[in-house]
C-alpha cells in the first residue's frame, strides 16, 4: 500500500539531547499555556470586588444548608476494584504497543506468544471482573 512505511527500519542510535529536543516543545507548550493563563486569574483578582464581610460566603457549597462535618471524609465508592484493575491492565495494554509498533518487522511466528499473552490477559481480566461483582469483599 505505502511502501515507504513498510521498509525495514534500521536500528539507529540517537542522542539523549536529540530525543529530549522534541519533547521539550511539549513542555514549552505547557509552560506557554501557564504563562498566558495565569495573568487571567491575576487580573481577575485585581479588578473583581472582594468583600470579606460575611464569613458564610466562604463556607463550602451545600445547597443552602449549613455544612456539616468535614469535606474530606471516608467515602465508600463500591467500585474500588476497578481502580485496582486499572493499575495492572493499563501497563499490560501499553506492553501490547511494543509488539504492535514492530509487528511488520517481526516473523509471523512471533505472534503466537503474543496470542498466549492476550489469552492470559483476557482470562485474568475476566476473573478480576468476576471478583469485582462481589461487593462484600470491597
Amino acid at each position, binding site marked *: *500500500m*505505502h*511502501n515507504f*512505511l*513498510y521498509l525495514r527500519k534500521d536500528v539507529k542510535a540517537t542522542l539523549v539531547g536529540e530525543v529530549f529536543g*522534541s*519533547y521539550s*516543545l*511539549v*513542555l*514549552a*507548550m*505547557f*509552560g*506557554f*499555556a*501557564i504563562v498566558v*493563563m*495565569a495573568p*487571567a*486569574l491575576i*487580573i*481577575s*483578582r485585581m*479588578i*473583581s470586588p472582594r468583600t470579606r464581610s460575611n464569613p458564610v*460566603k*466562604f*463556607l*463550602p*457549597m*451545600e*445547597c443552602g444548608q449549613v*455544612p456539616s462535618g*468535614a*469535606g*474530606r471524609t471516608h*467515602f465508600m465508592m463500591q*467500585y474500588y476494584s*476497578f*481502580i485496582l484493575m*486499572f493499575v495492572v*491492565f*493499563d501497563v499490560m*495494554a*501499553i506492553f*501490547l*504497543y511494543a509488539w*504492535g*509498533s*514492530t*509487528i*511488520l*518487522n517481526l516473523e*509471523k511466528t512471533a*505472534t503466537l506468544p503474543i496470542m498466549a499473552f*492476550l489469552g492470559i490477559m*483476557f482470562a485474568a481480566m475476566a476473573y478480576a*471482573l468476576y471478583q*469485582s461483582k462481589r461487593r462484600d469483599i470491597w
Partner: protein
Amino acid sequence: MSVIAPKFRLGHFIKSITNDIFWIVVLITLIGIPVIFIVLFYIDLPVLDGELVTPFLAFTMLAHPELSIPLIDSFMNTDFFRIAIFPGFGFAALIAGSTIFVERKLLAKLQLRVGPFYCGKIEGILQLVGDGLKLLSKEIIIPAKADKPIFWAAPVLFVATAAAFVALIPVAPGWVVADVDVGLLAVFAVIGFFPIITVLSSWSANSKYPFIGGIRALHQMISFEIPLILSLLGVVILTGTLNLTEIVQSQTSYWWIIFLPIGAIVFFITMLAELERIPFDLPEAESEIVAGWLTEFSGMMYGLVQLGSYIKLYAFAALFVVLFLGGWNGFGVIPPTPPEIVDFGIQAGPISVDLPGIEKLTERTLNFSLINGVVWFVFKTVIVIFFILIPRGVFPRVRIDLLLHIGWYKLITLSFVNIFIALGLLYAGVLGPGGLL
C-alpha cells in the same frame, strides 16, 4: 425636559474626529514606536539575502507590505509561532471558543430555543466576549478551609495539560509543535494527567460535592482509558509506527475508518467519556451533585476550566481525524498553480498578465499545500466536533454501574475484536508489506 440626543453639529463632529486622530498619532509616536524598537532589539532577527536584519531595517520592512513578507515568513518558521499561534495555543483556543458558541446555539436549536441572541446584534455572535468580561470581573470565592495553592493551580494546570495535548497533534504536513517519535504514547501520557488534576482540585476544595464528583471522574476516566488505549492498537499494527505524522501519511489513499470501523466507534465512545460529555457526564452531573468537581470554582477559575475542557475536546477530535479520517489528506481545494502561469503569466490571445505574487505564494511558508491541508483538517475536525456535540441534546445520563459495565465488558471486548480484525487484514495479505492494496 431632558434632551435624549444633543443636537448634531458637523463642526463638533469633525473636531472630535481630529482630536482623536491627534491623540492616536501622539500616543503611537511616544509609546508605540519605542515599544516596537525595544521588542525588536531583544528578538533574534533572521538573516535575509545574506544580510542580518537590524531593528531599524526590520522596522522599515514592517511598514512596507512587500518587504514585510520575508520577515513574516521567517517569523512563521520559529518555534514561538508554532507554540503560540498556528498549530498551537492560539489555533486551539480559537476553535475551542467557537465550539462553545456553536454548542450553545446548536443545543438551543435542538430544544426549540433561540440561544444567545442579543449580544452583538447578529445571532448573539459576541456572547463569548460578554461572557469572558463577566467571568473576568466576577469575584473569586474560595472555601475557607480549602488547600489554597493547589486550588488556585488546578484550573491553570488543566488548561496547560490540554495545551500539551494539542502540541502533539499534526495539523498540516510538517506543521506540528512537537514531532515526537512515539507520539501516540505521548498522547496517552498526557491524557493520564487529567484524572490527577481533577482529583487534586476536588480534594483541595474540601467540600462534599467536588469530592464525589472527583471520585466519579477518577472512576470514569480510569475505566475508559484501557479501551481507549486498546482501540488504537489496530491502527498501530497496520501502520507499524507510533508517530502521528507518519500515521497520517499512511492514509493517502484509504482512511483507517474503512478497515477498522469498530476501533473508530470504540475510540469515539471512550473519547466522549474522557471528555466528560453527555451521556457520560457523571463527574459534572448538574441534577445530582450540583456541578460535580466544578462546584467550588467561581469566576475566572471556572472560565479557565471550561476553556481547558474545550481545548481538550478539540484535541480529541483532531486525534480522531489524525488516526481514522486521514488527517490533512484530501483532494486539492485550491489547485496548485500550473508552472506556465508562474513563468509567463496568464496569456489570452494578444494579452498577457504577469502575476508576480503567485511565485512567492508557492515557495513561501504559506503555500498552497499548507492551505489545502489546513482546510481539510479543520473541515474534518469540525464534523467530528459536531458528532461530539449532538449527543448532548439527545441522550440521558448513564448510571455509574452501567458506565463501568460498558467500559470494562463491552468496549474492551470490542477493542480486542478490533485488534484481531487488524491482525487478520495483515496476515491475510490485504494490507501490509506486499499486500493487495
